[in-house]
């Protein structure tokens, strides 16, 4: 009985500032409300431009303020070469740009995937002087702004071709070769990073076992290492392909006459004005890149499971 009273007295002794408690509870309530309100705002911000773009590509009137009815006319116009008020658009030019994009992306992806995989293997399996510097340089193309890469390379080519002309009298013009070189330069890093991550997760014992069983270096690579890192190589290659296909800035500064890629072509349209046809092209592009990346994600997911 006495002990109980003692505890009770003690509890009463604890100083409770009721105002402070009330303030803290209010603070918590505000925080909770804010935490639920913020995602609503953020997702609205992320999705409204895309929804507006898609919706107005089906709008019967040319306005982008009121929706007057559903139509497929603008999509029809794109594929029939009619472009409303736009000059310089033709279905043929668009398909040509698409073809150019494919040439550039495929070539750049193949070269970058081979070189990138090689350096990834080198960096994760061996040690040589200057390796740390190489590591740092390999990350630079990922962080340096595209415009710096595009411009510096364009100036470099300009100087290089100038010298070549003064030496041989022949003028080299920018074209597919300059675009592909530029794309490979930034893609090597992305491929190397993806493949290296895969190699880091790989057990080196497999390679040791192959060597113990009498496989030579090539056989070890061909039958053990390569199949194990293949998902990483495929993922890196797909990433490189997507980046290459989507690239505008670097391509813009390094392309020549007749090598307009799809993003450069689209940029020319977007800069002009806002028309429902451009909304429709944008919607198509959006669907294409979403589907492409979706496929590559599915592939990565599936190969990662294996």
């Amino acid at each position, binding site marked *: 009985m006495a002990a109980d009273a003692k505890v009770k007295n003690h509890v009463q002794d604890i100083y409770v500032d009721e105002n402070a408690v009330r303030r*803290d509870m209010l603070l*918590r309530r505000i*925080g909770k409300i804010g*935490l639920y309100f*913020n*995602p609503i*705002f*953020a997702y609205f*911000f*992320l999705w*409204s*431009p*895309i929804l*507006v*773009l898609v919706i107005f590509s089906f709008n019967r009137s040319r306005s*982008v*303020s*009121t929706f007057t009815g559903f139509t497929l006319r603008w999509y029809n116009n794109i594929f029939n070469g009619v472009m409303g008020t736009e000059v310089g658009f033709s279905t043929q030019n668009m398909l040509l740009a698409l073809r150019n994009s494919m040439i550039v992306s495929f070539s750049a992806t193949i070269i970058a995937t081979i*070189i*990138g995989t090689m*350096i990834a*293997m*080198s*960096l994760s*399996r*061996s040690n*040589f002087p200057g390796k740390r510097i*190489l590591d740092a*340089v*390999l990350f*630079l193309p990922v*962080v*340096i*702004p*595209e*415009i*710096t890469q595009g*411009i*510096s*390379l364009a*100036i*470099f080519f*300009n*100087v290089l071709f*100038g010298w070549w002309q003064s030496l041989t009298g022949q003028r080299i013009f920018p074209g597919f070769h300059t675009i592909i070189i*530029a794309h490979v330069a*930034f893609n090597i890093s992305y491929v190397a990073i993806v493949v290296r991550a895969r190699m880091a997760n790989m057990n080196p014992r497999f390679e040791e076992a192959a060597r113990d069983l009498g496989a030579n270096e090539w056989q070890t690579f061909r039958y053990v290492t390569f199949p194990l890192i293949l998902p990483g190589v495929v993922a890196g290659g797909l990433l490189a392909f997507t980046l290459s296909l*989507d690239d505008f*800035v670097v391509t813009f500064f390094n392309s020549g006459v007749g090598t307009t890629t799809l*993003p450069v072509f*689209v940029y020319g349209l*977007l*800069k002009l004005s*806002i028309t429902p046809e*451009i909304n429709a092209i*944008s919607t198509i*592009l*959006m669907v294409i890149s979403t589907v492409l*990346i*979706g496929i590559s994600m599915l592939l990565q997911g599936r190969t990662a499971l294996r």
Partner: protein
Amino acid sequence: MNWFKSQDGRGFLLALPAIFWLGVFFILPLFTIVVISFMSRGAGGVAELPYTLAHYDRTFGVFSVILIRSIRIASITTIVCLFIGYPLAFFISTRKNRNFQNLCLFFIILPFWTNFLVRTYAWRILLGDAGTINAILLSWGWIEEPLRLLNTEFAVLVGLIYGFFPFMVLPIYASIERFDFKFVDAAHDLGANDWTTFWRVVFPMTLPGVLAGSALVFIPSVGAFITPDLLGGTRGLMIGNLISRQFGGSGNMPLGSALSVVMMAVVLLTLLVYVRFGINREGDD
């Protein structure tokens, strides 16, 4: 020469093609623009001797307005992304249901699978004089005349925040995901309220994610070209546009190089700050 037959030597040989490609087509061009930036402007905008500091004079003189504007726009972009991104990352990473978390992340990333040009163009539709936002505000009677939204600094800000927002959310999400919420219980037991707990415990411990996100948003924003080009007009002109204007007919390649070198310096400085304060704090991570 036996070294080339060792494991390390062979490794070096494997790295050679990449060293060559990056050396010639990435590092060498960067050095080239540094050299060119000190040369005079010749006929057709190309570089010629003698060496001069005139372009740096103009960069920090006439063009300092644009340089400062670029840094200001990039800073505001970073801060706004942080203010919207941190609570969002916190919300997602504190959801109990793992699938719901993944769904939330998926809906942040999905819009960014779209081509950057198209995403930026979408804002032209929204912000234009006859655009969606003005039409809505007019019909609600909130405004009498359409607001001038497009071709302003504001439009560039919105476009950049939109363009680089996930770069902020994802690193912060990873940081909060790793954060042990027992620290929050401990802080509460010690008498801290939510405000104190957040600023003294949660925020400092998730700072690596905040710094990584900030660097990832700030760097591409400073060097932005597409966004100010499509949304900014002359009022929202940034250093990236100024650089691109130095090419072609009436261009000035040495000036463009000097501007690029200054921009690169800003970027490398940001990286240095990040490496110094961001990576060290992560400790053994």
